[in-house]
């Protein structure tokens, strides 16, 4: 990320901010979609995150942390968006067009449907940690840092997310509640 662009945007340069937006919006939208599992909600979360980021940009202390900072704003926008009642919520799901690469023998269509159903039973906090770790590829310590939660909490959420997926895949089980790790 270009530090100069961030600095210029911090000082009110809208063109610099637009350049930054075009650099990060695909990543932000991808993460939002994977947390919310809804293209309409993901679009709204992205828009809200971008607008909020613009407003709060002067308060960003370390320009080098821009990407992590804006992802944090996005995750919170996802939390907000999921709670918003929307009568016009999109019911159209985006279906994959291309066969994904590296899809192993377990990933049959039935498994994908099961994963979709199982993932939706996770809490948003569990989904966020799971997506940031397994999709974005951040180490758990960085996930915790990004979300401003203790590393133990991130580890716990990931554990319960995985447990939730496993249980839900084995049977149509109720959501797994977070507890304390032994």
């Amino acid at each position, binding site marked *: 990320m270009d530090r100069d662009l961030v600095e210029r945007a911090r000082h*009110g340069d*809208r063109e610099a*901010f*637009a350049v930054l*937006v*075009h650099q990060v*919006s*695909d990543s*932000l*939208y*991808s993460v939002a*979609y*994977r947390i919310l599992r809804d*293209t309409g909600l*993901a*679009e*709204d979360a*992205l*828009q*809200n995150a*971008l*607008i*909020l980021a*613009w*407003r*709060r*940009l*002067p*308060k960003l202390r370390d320009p080098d942390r821009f990407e992590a900072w804006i992802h944090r704003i996005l995750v919170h926008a996802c939390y907000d*968006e999921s709670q*918003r009642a*929307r*009568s*016009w919520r999109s019911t159209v799901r*985006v279906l*994959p067009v291309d066969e*994904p*690469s*590296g*899809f*192993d023998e*377990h*990933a049959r269509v039935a*498994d*994908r449907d099961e*994963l*979709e159903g199982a*993932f939706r039973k996770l809490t948003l906090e569990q989904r966020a940690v*799971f*997506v940031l770790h*397994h*999709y974005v590829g951040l180490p758990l310590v960085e996930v915790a840092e990004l979300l401003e939660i203790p590393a133990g909490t991130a580890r716990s959420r990931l554990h319960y997310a*995985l447990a939730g*997926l*496993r249980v839900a*895949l*084995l049977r149509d089980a109720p959501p797994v509640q977070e507890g304390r790790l032994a």
Partner: protein
Amino acid sequence: MTDDRSLERAARSWLEEGPSQAPDRAVEAALLRVETTSQERDLRIPWRLPKMNPMMRLGTIAFVAVVAIGGTLYVFRPAQFGGPSTTASPTGSPLPSTAPASLEGTWETTFTRQEMLAAGIADAAEDDPSNYGHFKLAISAGLVLTVHLDGPQDTSAGRYVARGGTFTSTTLAGETFSWSYAVSSTTLTFAGNGPVTLRAKPWTRVAPASIEGTWETSFTRDEMLAAGIVPGEDDASNYGHFTLAIHDGGSVLTQLDGPKLTGRAACVVHGSSFTSASTNGEVFTWSFTATDTTLTFQGGPVTLRVKPWTRIGP
């Protein structure tokens, strides 16, 4: 898919599916909104009280945040857009339903940093670029709005009472600032110990903007959705049949059907920019194009910009 590794592997592959590019419309809509959205900056509000105590300073920051955050909220929902007699001051005292006629309107002034310093500032903190430059001031319906037309283009809004030669403005955070004032048909002058921006130079009354008058439009919910909304704007108070009256630094939006809400705001017209401050302190800016008979808004909350407005009266 029962052991953790195969489950993780399958979950990762599954996560890879789905869209990976942000829709252009979402990005462009956000950038369009950014065009009319101010950034949050601490203590840049022009109306600083000298020697604020910590609680008052906190209040100022909170008010700046309220004004800035207002950009994402929609203007015309029932709980936020009271009618002419529904607002109350933070202290519970009644606000005048109308200001003295000579004070209402739009005013303009320009002064340099040197002129600001010559007028006297309370402390070094008041020596801030947001406190000098070119300003417009709208006073209407118990609301006051300043727009900084150069530099950071900040806005400030509050409620006010003008009584006995004293102009007292109260922000939503409950801060109160007072100036003495003198007004004529062409000039408004502030003095006293209030924050420097209002009192640095006399204000000159601005001639009515070309878009002053009464306008009308009507649109359906589907047309509103097609115009693009932000979350929360899909509300019955935001579509239907409306009139918009713009006069003397104020605007009145009246919904003629549906919830039939009326909202008042102080507004500043500058060039092709229309900025309004509603009774709850939210400030929004739209750009507009206008002919004698048609007024079209862009940017800002949805209600004004769905369809062109047609002039129905002076």
